[in-house]
């Protein structure tokens, strides 16, 4: 069963490495470098999971989360916050995020969280 992941991250290096790593783990992946493009992707296509950076041009992670909850309630959202921005993480969780990850994060930790989300879906 395929598990589709969209990575919304404006930092090219981080986005590329996350996409490569997840692809190597067997996920079907797409990337977006701003919040608005990510929303368009989700409106046009189905995704099981969205990884959204909080700070992004055009539309920030929290607004993207809110819009995704409306247009695609089945898509789980993991929010990536800046280190120490615990308040935005709390807000994101209240707004219905599946999980959050503070920067700088461990790739293994990210993969672990996504694996868990996939296991939940297949249950």
């Amino acid at each position, binding site marked *: 069963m395929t598990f589709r992941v969209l990575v919304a991250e404006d*930092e090219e*290096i*981080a986005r590329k*490495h*996350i996409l*490569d*790593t997840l692809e190597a783990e067997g996920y079907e992946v797409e990337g977006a470098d701003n919040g608005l493009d990510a929303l368009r992707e989700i409106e046009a296509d189905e995704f099981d999971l969205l990884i959204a950076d909080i700070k992004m041009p055009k539309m920030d992670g929290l607004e993207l989360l809110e819009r995704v909850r409306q247009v695609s309630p089945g898509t789980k959202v993991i929010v990536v916050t*800046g*280190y*120490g921005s615990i308040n935005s993480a709390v807000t994101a969780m209240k707004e219905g995020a599946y999980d959050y990850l503070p*920067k*700088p*994060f*461990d*790739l*293994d930790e990210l993969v672990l969280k996504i694996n868990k989300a996939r296991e939940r879906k297949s249950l």
Partner: protein
Amino acid sequence: MIVIADDLDRDARNNAESGISSSQTAILVFVPLFLLIGLSTLLYISSSVVRRLKTLTTSVEQIGEHFVPSEEVMRESGGHMDEVDVLVEKTRIVNNKLNDWEQELHEKNEELIRSKKLAAIGTLASGVAHELNNPINNITISAQVLQRKIAGDAPPEVTQIVDEIIGQTLRVKGIVSNLLEFAREREPQLSTVQLPEVVRNAYEQVIRSTDTMDVEFTLDTRDEISIRADAGQLERVFINLFSNAVAVMEGKGRLTVKMEEEDGSVVIWVSDTGKGLSREDQEKIFDPFFTRREKGTGLGLAIVMNIIRQHGGGITVVSEKGMGTVFEIHLPKGAD
């Protein structure tokens, strides 16, 4: 001849008597008159001077607080003070008050400059920390990808270098975390906390991250001392103080925490048997970015100071080169 002489003599006597009589009349009239005028003038001048002195005294009194002569001054004046004594004494008191106020103003001014400086550094620190987030994240992720790709294939020194890069990014993560902690200055979330418990938890956390095998830790207190405080922030205070103490003792020595309750407040002493601080270092020890350690960020004690102040308390340091260091913390107990 004799008759003529007698006549002349009588005339002269009559003239003299009349002169004496006029003089007596003049004396009788003018002396009391002059005396009266003199006394009136004197009375006028003295009452005017006294009145003016009183006005001056009242003005001086208004500048200062209500005047109460000290027992010593009353003794010296034999229990009686005239207007000039009172004025001198009042001027002395006002002068002392002015000196006190000048000192107080100077201290408040220093405090204001310090807090403005800290606020500016806080803004800068916060900005820098947030900007560093993305580059650090990129370096960490890139190094992790490299680590995955070379796993098992690369020569050991290459693997070691990659591990070092990841280790150093974790170090930067720690610095950024300290910067944000320092800059955040969030309002304490007050609850009733048991101080000895907070101290023990903090030391346990230090044990986990630092080698404390040769440190003798003592907590000298009666069991229950509770205050209204932010438990997390207070724990941070003790973690920072203990980490510093263990570092300056180079992992060997005695670390003692003593606490006592005073009227409405708690006093805590944290003492170590380290190298101690010079006078110059004691003045700068709470300044952000001041450090005596090679790998220190100089933010630990600045964070401690911020947290203590946000709780309405104070912290001072007493130390001597070679004699160890004692930090004394005062914290209000707060309403239950």
